[in-house]
């Protein structure tokens, strides 16, 4: 039982998106070290059709962060404190309603 974080990113981002993606990766690595229930997946977009299969993706700006099927950022560097709050909330929900 854990919290699933999907980081959706473009195979060929522009320079700015690449910087943001790397910073998000660093944030997620830090959080993974802190929360052992966190599962982080990186989903690379190689063609437009790839977008259709991503559950929870609503705003198609990248990199996007989706936590347990809910998109929480699109093309921005998230506040690590906010991410931690959402992760904790999702974890508590998962404990209350397992499966």
């Amino acid at each position, binding site marked *: 039982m854990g919290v699933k974080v999907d980081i959706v990113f*473009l*195979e*060929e*981002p*522009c*320079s*700015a*998106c*690449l*910087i*943001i993606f*790397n*910073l998000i990766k*660093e*944030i997620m690595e830090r959080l993974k070290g802190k929360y052992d229930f966190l599962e982080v997946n990186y989903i690379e977009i190689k*063609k*437009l059709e790839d977008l259709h299969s991503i559950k929870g993706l609503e705003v198609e*700006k*990248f990199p996007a962060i989706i936590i347990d099927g809910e998109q929480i950022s699109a*093309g*921005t*560097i998230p*506040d*690590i404190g906010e991410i931690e709050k959402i992760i904790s909330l999702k974890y508590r929900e998962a404990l209350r309603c397992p499966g």
Partner: protein
Amino acid sequence: MNSKELLLRAIHNESVERIPWVPFVGCHAGNLIGVTAEEYFRNSDNIIRGAIKAFEEYKPDGLPVTFDLQVEAEAIGCKLVYSDKNPPSVATHPLQEGKSIEDLKIPSETDGRFPIVLKAAKEICKLLGDKIAVYGLVIGPFTLALHFKGTDIFYEMMDSPERVYELMRFCQKVSINSAKMYIDAGVDVVAIVDPMTSQISPTSFEEFVSPYLTPVFDYIRERGKVCSLFVCGNATKNIESMCKSKPDNISIDENVDLAYAKEICQRYGVSLGGNIKLTLTMLFGTPLDNIREAENLMEIGGKKGYILSPGCDIPYDTPPENIKAITSAVHGEVGEFMRQDIKNSLEEIDVVLPDYKNAKKVIIDVITLDSGSCAPCQYAVEAVKSAVEGIEDKVEWNEYKIKEKESIIRMIKLRVPNIPTICIDGEPVYISVIPSVDELRRSIETAIKRKGI
């Protein structure tokens, strides 16, 4: 007026006869010359060959030497990870790893990849500098500070602003020094590329960015060169603050509404560049998508103080045909471009033009991309609709959308060079110009009289 003069006029917020075009070719140049992004960024000959190829293929009015926001960071001590298809990424942040600002040194011409980039800049200026404007791209102070400090900088902005000011002072010196090196190499425009400023509020921009940016722009102007500020991401909230930091030009990406940015920039006398969609249009779209977007943006940007460009650096695998399609829209050569695009199927399709001379009505052909999605095309069609009101019995009009092959053949047969074009009785009369309803009505009435209808 050559391309360079045209661009320099536009960037100084003057009116020009044609909207200039600057494709931000960075790693994409590697693709153009058949090398990986890493091979491109690490070799001055490849950077030079890439720029020349882009010049030949895309008929630009300006080009960057290269597009790499990591040159300064690498020269100062950040470790980079290179890639086959992307610019390099910063993998370490020295100030997160125990180093202090005092340990950081302003890079010189001999540090990191500066020898590669500056050699390329000098050669590109020598080869192309009399024809087009050459841009030297310098990392902006805030993005560089983020490279040094990582996301911790956002907390320090709140908790220890003095430490951020100190870091920004250092980064400002780096930006000025890089600008100096590019200017000494001969560039015409120095663009301060500070994309991470889109991640902060206007208040933070004015506190942590503007005081360190403005002196960089002042320096560039003192050296007699033009300064531009590039941002990527949703910088909508910061456009006014960006203008107040006093660049000559700003360049935005697809996250900002061009009309909104234009209005603010004009208020401050700052010219504007942007903002073709990189992924949806340039990388994944078709040539027609690219023509449509270029036409729409040029309609909004207008001929005063606007430069057509992508929102940021062009992705490695962007099909060159898509970029050439934009070139054709800029240069009024869509007809020729479309003829080349479908030349293999020209023989399969035949279009018989009407006998315009002997037809019982005046025939108006409106050649468009699609009036449903291309703003100038829509205005052309609306002008025709209004102009023929009350004389429908004497006039027949049709829209031909060049997303259909038959319409391309028609466009070629009518010798229509660009879209939208209004033809009257088989003659292209209004080419890329939307006439007033009154003017168009008079032209139609003249044609009616000529035919004795």
